[in-house]
């Protein structure tokens, strides 16, 4: 049930009306039923996996919560405390292994088997591992990460374990976020899900506005940009340098508007029902550095990685030793930034792996890990150069340069991420440098990408609207601004936006671009 289908809209309308009509104290049960219906609509056979994750995390958190309480009780001796801690640790590891094991097996078994078989073949060893073409359960990467954050938080004693299994099930399966996130935290999301509170008029209005904006991004911009990007990435050999550069640019736009559009729809759905979900995008293409880009892009995954991978990793004895070693031999700066760089390398390797069982995702992750790590290590060099060359780092011009430079780097990332093979990616990358090569029949080439002139105009106008809104959003909330206007202006904006999506949106028979990019992860 993709967000841009009629079935989803009908389903959401039913849930929305239901959530207003049902007594507030039963609302969470209604949401649980709706979430499971939503999940089962995709396929009932996937249910076993989400149930297993729910049940294992429920049992584990209850057990760990009990052990934590006993450990913290005044009567507990030091020896007992260690015992309770060990027990908690064992249960945590067991739960993590089980849940990440399911994810790894379903998502990566085929990849591992294929690569091992390739290696065995190269070494002329006869034996082969069977390659299973397993179907990935819907949203498994998202709900596994969300649930494991809850399990780890309980282990750390940051949150109390939930004693009602059905409530845990709702936290794991809450329907707006299960497809593509954002990856919610228990302490933020759960109290809202279980609270006996009805959505207000303000929530409803703002939620529906956000959904409409999400549909605008997805159906007006992303699905049109996808037509060009798909064509160029598949036929780059027959496309001019300008065409390839345009294709890469379009993929960068598609990736952002598709994913952030879906997140807006998901957050809008939740907000309309009175639930605020975590922010996942903060205009990432306005970032002045790659590390800032990752603080603004897929923020919920970034923050997950920071809390559950980066910090625990940085605090390990091995990394501390490396830091001390670097400080001793290469100075204070190296001693501070080298462990951070290593942490980032690990985090981005895992971010790459999280996206899927393909080498290009792994290389894409390492690409960002290395960039961020190196830029951190080289910071004094850049500062020195800026000073010596008298570069006005605070000027608008330099800031614009930084934004364009970061965008260009993310475009390189897009090539790695999207190209079918590394060889293809390399050729596309090289061809982008020939962006000044305009074909003689420029119109003919543009049309050959699969969009006609009028659709290019819609795409361009959509992109300009997006740019203006994002620029305004950097300063203040556009929705709050609209809210302050007279009713005629407000309603005019809503109606026009609704009509634009209704008319110019890409949907209905004949369009293949209805799948959301991040749904596959």
């Amino acid at each position: 049930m993709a967000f841009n289908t009629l079935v989803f809209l009908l389903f959401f309308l039913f849930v929305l009306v239901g959530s207003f009509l049902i007594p507030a104290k039963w609302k969470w049960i209604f949401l649980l039923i709706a979430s499971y219906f939503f999940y089962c609509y995709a396929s009932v056979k996937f249910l076993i996996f989400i149930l297993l994750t729910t049940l294992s995390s429920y049992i584990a958190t209850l057990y760990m919560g009990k052990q934590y309480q006993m450990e913290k009780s005044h009567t507990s001796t030091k020896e007992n405390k260690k015992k309770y801690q060990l027990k908690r640790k064992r249960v945590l590891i067991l739960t993590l292994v089980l849940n990440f094991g399911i994810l790894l097996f379903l998502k990566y078994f085929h990849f591992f088997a294929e690569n091992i078989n390739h290696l065995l073949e190269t070494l002329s060893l006869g034996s082969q591992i069977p390659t299973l073409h397993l179907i990935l359960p819907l949203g498994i990467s998202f709900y596994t990460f969300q649930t494991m954050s809850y399990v780890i938080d309980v282990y750390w004693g940051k949150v109390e374990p939930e004693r009602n299994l059905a409530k845990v099930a709702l936290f794991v399966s809450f329907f707006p976020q299960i497809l593509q996130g954002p990856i919610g935290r228990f302490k933020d999301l759960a109290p809202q899900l279980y609270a006996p509170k009805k959505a207000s008029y303000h929530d409803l209005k703002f939620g529906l506005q956000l959904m409409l904006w999400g549909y605008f991004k997805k159906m007006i911009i992303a699905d049109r940009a996808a037509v060009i990007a798909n064509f160029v990435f598949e036929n780059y050999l027959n496309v001019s340098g300008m065409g390839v550069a345009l294709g890469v640019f379009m993929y960068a736009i598609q990736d952002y508007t598709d994913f952030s559009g879906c997140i807006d729809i998901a957050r809008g759905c939740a907000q309309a029902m009175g639930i605020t979900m975590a922010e996942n995008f903060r205009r990432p293409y306005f970032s002045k550095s790659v590390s800032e880009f990752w603080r603004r892009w897929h923020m919920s995954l970034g923050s997950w990685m920071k809390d559950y991978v980066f910090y625990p990793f940085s605090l390990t004895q091995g990394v501390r030793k490396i830091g001390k070693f670097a400080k001793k031999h290469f100075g204070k700066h190296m001693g501070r930034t080298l462990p951070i760089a290593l942490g980032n390398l690990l985090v981005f390797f895992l971010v790459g792996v999280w996206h899927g069982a393909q080498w290009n995702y792994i290389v894409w992750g390492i690409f960002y890990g290395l960039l961020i790590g190196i830029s951190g290590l080289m910071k004094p060099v850049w500062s020195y150069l800026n000073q010596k060359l008298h570069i006005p780092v605070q000027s608008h011009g330099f800031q614009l340069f930084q934004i364009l430079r970061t965008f260009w780097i993310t475009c390189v990332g897009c090539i790695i991420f999207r190209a079918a093979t590394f060889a293809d990616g390399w050729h596309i990358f090289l061809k982008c440098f020939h962006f000044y090569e305009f074909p003689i029949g420029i119109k003919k080439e543009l049309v050959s990408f699969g969009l006609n002139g009028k659709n290019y105009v819609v795409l361009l106008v959509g992109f300009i609207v997006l740019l203006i809104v994002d620029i305004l959003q950097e300063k203040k909330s556009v929705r709050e601004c609209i809210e302050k206007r007279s009713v005629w202006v407000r309603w005019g904006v809503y109606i026009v936006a609704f009509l634009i999506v209704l008319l110019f949106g890409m949907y209905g028979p004949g369009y293949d671009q209805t799948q959301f990019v991040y749904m596959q992860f």
Partner: protein
Amino acid sequence: MTKSQKCKILMMTVIMIGLVCGMNFIMCRQAYSSDAVRVKNFYKLEKNSLDMVMIGASTAFTDYSAPLAFQEFGYTSYSLGTNAAPMGIAKSMLIEVLKTQNPKVILIDINGILYNDDFETREGPLRSWIDNMPYSENKVQTIQELVPEDERLSYYIPFLKYHSNWAKFKDNVEESIDEFIHQDNIHLLSAGIQGTAQIIPQKSSIPIRAHTQERPMYHLSGQHLKELLEYCQKQGLTNIVFTNMPRYYSEKMIPERERNNAAKALIHQYGYECIDMDDYVDEMGLNPQTDFYNQNHLNIYGQKKLTMYLGKRLDEKYHLSDTPHDEKIIQRYQQEVVAYEKIYKWADEQIRLGKKKRYNYKEVREIIEK
């Protein structure tokens, strides 16, 4: 939530629904707009006002003229046909006819049996009928029977399909206004006329009357004809007559003749009459050098000859003109006759001048209003 907030929600909901309905009216327009006019106008006819209804594909309205039949024989009739209508649509059309009319004869053109399985499920011809019929149980059934499962949604909600026509938004608005203004169009029969004012002299032709050999029909169209016959039999319909409109045959078209023969045999098996107009080319006086605008369709001269022959035959056998009608209906048909004469004169002029002119409801209206 306060009362005023509830009011706002209600108002916005009404506005949104209104916008969706309005957009639906404006955007759901097809290239074959004569089909739309023809189908929509059928529903504007007075209840039980027709003595004869012709169901079928394009030949139902290019080869037969209802105003001429009224002028010559005095019975009322209507050509409920859509371009390239597959055989499967005939049952759906028949059910729609029976909802509002009780004609003495329902003539079903079997042109659709010549379509292979791919043609039988082509989107355009299916939409020409389905998208223009009002919502009913029959519409749902038609969609379920004829449309592949994964494509059905956009037939239930045509806007899903037609919203991509936004590039023609201006034209669509103009057509919508036009339709709105002419919703009480008196030229019910003429409005749906479509054809070409042209003569295509047939160079090589073969006599077909003696060719009685049969060839199995295509799977889907054959199956749909059988289902139609079973439906007619089950409903006890005795006023059904099948027909095959005339063609000009070349060697290549022999298989078509043989499939027609198989269809006729099946129709006879079920006890229904099938008038094969190919067998009466001489009686009608159809001249292959002057009366066709292509191999499968008659021009205005051929239409006149066929209507004269078929009208007489049906009127004599079924006494179509015996039914008295309201003055209002008679007056309307008389106006239709005037309109028909104007169109005939115009087409005749075009042919004499050697101009090949296609005409649809828009040109027809201009000719009538001159």
